[in-house]
């Protein structure tokens, strides 16, 4: 019978607390910068410049944001069902494989306008399929989904290397990659699309898949909070016994939610394969799956929060790339560290500041309370 929900106002819980957590993560990063002899202020300036300072940079930032929205939504959907999907890396990888296979196989038979939607669906289906087995094993065998999804990440890696090296490899390239898709099935770049309207921007990997990502966010919002399947999902995630009582089958919900989660992660393939690389290659998924966890936690598992957090992480990734470019003693691993810190402070240490906020709030508003009770 805890009164936890009542003691500090909603805005403190929903906005101030997460803000403090992120500030702490950044402060810790600044500490690490100092440790390796980098001026945090200078680093921040370079980072922000890299993310916003020039058109190409903005494009890159938003291109990364697209991926984070997909994987962040994926993790969030699973979280609402009470599951931890750490398999975003593998699901994104295999989703890309699906998109790529469709393009390679169908591009010569069907017009681009048909192939692209099919490829999008394929990336979702392949991603869902990669999540299906761990989901099934958790639902019907009780196998710990955290371990199985991590294993499937490794398996995806091996599978992709095999496919690229042995099956799809286009000879004469430095690293294993497939043949380039015909231009008909390329998803237009944003700078191309804007050019149709007479607006010129610098070229960047940013492409139309960002609209797909935003659509996905709307879909998730509607699905989770405004449909009966979303209700079933949230009930299962909060209280499996109550779900059974209500006639919900938790095993089915687990599988369904993981498949949706996998599908969302798989759509990273739309961005990377259809939108940017136009061929299948290795390691295009790198880091997006894990970043999705940080994004979901930072965004409190809500689509609006996730979009904002994705934007922030896009800034970090692009800014981080700029930093690594400018400073020889920094690599992109610094962004990995930031991810870890965000997950730590926004996830594990989520409520660290809560007792202090409570004391602060009560001492500020305490006068009123005592009057009421006298």
């Amino acid at each position: 019978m805890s009164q936890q929900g009542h003691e500090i106002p909603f805005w403190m819980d929903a906005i101030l607390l997460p803000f403090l957590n992120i500030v702490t993560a950044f402060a810790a990063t600044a500490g690490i910068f100092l440790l390796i002899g980098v001026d945090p202020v200078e680093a921040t300036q370079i980072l922000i410049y890299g993310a916003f300072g020039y058109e190409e940079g903005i494009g890159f930032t938003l291109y990364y944001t697209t991926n984070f929205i997909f994987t962040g939504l994926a993790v969030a959907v699973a979280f609402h069902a009470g599951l931890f999907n750490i398999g975003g890396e593998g699901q994104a990888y295999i989703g890309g494989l699906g998109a790529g296979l469709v393009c390679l196989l169908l591009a010569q038979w069907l017009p681009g306008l048909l192939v692209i939607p099919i490829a999008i669906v394929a990336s979702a289906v392949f991603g869902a399929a990669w999540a299906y087995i761990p989901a099934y094993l958790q639902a019907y065998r009780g196998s710990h989904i955290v371990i199985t999804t991590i294993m499937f990440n490794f398996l995806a890696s091996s599978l992709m290397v095999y496919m690229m090296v042995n099956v799809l490899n286009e000879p004469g390239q430095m690293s294993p990659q497939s043949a380039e898709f015909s231009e008909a099935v390329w998803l237009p770049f944003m700078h191309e699309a804007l050019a149709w309207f007479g607006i010129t921007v610098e070229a960047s990997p940013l492409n139309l898949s960002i609209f797909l990502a935003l659509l996905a966010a709307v879909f998730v919002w509607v699905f989770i909070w405004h449909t009966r399947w979303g209700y079933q999902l949230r009930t299962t995630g909060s209280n499996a016994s109550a779900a059974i009582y209500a006639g919900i089958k938790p095993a089915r919900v687990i599988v369904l939610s993981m498949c949706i989660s996998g599908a969302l992660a798989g759509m990273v393939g739309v961005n990377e394969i259809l939108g940017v690389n136009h061929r299948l290659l290795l390691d295009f998924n790198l880091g997006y799956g894990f970043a999705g966890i940080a994004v979901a936690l930072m965004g409190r598992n809500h689509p609006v929060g996730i979009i904002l957090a994705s934007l922030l992480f896009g800034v970090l990734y692009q800014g981080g790339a700029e930093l690594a470019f400018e400073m020889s003693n920094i690599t992109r691993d610094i962004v990995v560290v930031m991810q870890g810190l965000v997950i730590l402070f926004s996830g594990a240490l989520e409520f660290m500041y809560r007792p202090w906020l409570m004391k602060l709030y009560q001492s500020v508003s305490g006068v009123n309370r005592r009057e009421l009770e006298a």
Partner: protein
Amino acid sequence: MNEWFDIAILALDATMRVSAPLILAALAGLFSERAGVVDISLEGKMLAGGFAAAAAASVTGSAWLGLGAAILVSLALALLHGFACITHRGNQVVSGVAINILAAGLTMIMGLHWFNQGGQTPRLDNEARFLSLDLPGAQAVADVPYIGKIYEELISGHNILVYVAFLAVPFTYWVIYKTRFGLRLRAVGENPNAVDTAGISVTKMRYLAVLCCGVLCGIAGAYISTAHNAQFVRDMTAGQGFIALAALIFGKWRPVPVMFACLLFGFLDALAVRLQGVKIAGIGEIPVQFIEALPYLLTVILLAGFIGRAVAPKASGVPYVKER
């Protein structure tokens, strides 16, 4: 007959070497989870420990100082996990994931900063590594049929950390079941309320458990970078922390079954190496990637075939909150 025997000995020998870090990590997880703290970050602690060991050994020239550094770093991460999970009652899985990611990133950053080799540590000379030891009398009995071979190849000739790993099993058994500490640790994992009302601090017990976990993970990490190999490279642990976790579940959180589970994984891994280049009728050569994927595949199969009746310690994964 003799040939099969030799092959078996060699296979078992390789098995022991590959299983050693798994055993250490799995026992580490045992201490933590038996006390009710789920630990997904065995991987991260091993990785960080491995880096610390290689770095310290490279700078000081001493493998033992490397081991000490590994243990310290692993303890630090263990304390962080404890701080998040025990003191702040955070989500234990999320904390574990955070530590894994932090370890992966920080090892690269500090590696680059200190050694400027793209994140790796420099190759260690033999003096700075743990090398194989010959047990007394190994050479003398080498010619005795069968038993001599077993003693000389299989039992003698490992580096000291392998012996530590295998000795850790009976030691863990003794601590968990025969000491007061072990009784209280198990109690905390089953019913922390009972422990609290007995006047024992749940927090203290869980922190101690988590520290034990840290020490063992540190040793495991040091083994990987300074004994089994001669340097630290990116993502060196390659999922062994998770395989150890699977072995822990498969072994039902008991020291001796866990050891056998780790040996099983080690055996399959050693077997996989032998399968390289082997042709299967009708399929052709087994792809290298399949062999690399085998341990992960087997983890999934073992977890799946296992009919979820693994009864984890009852309070596992649940932060302790005094009921109102």
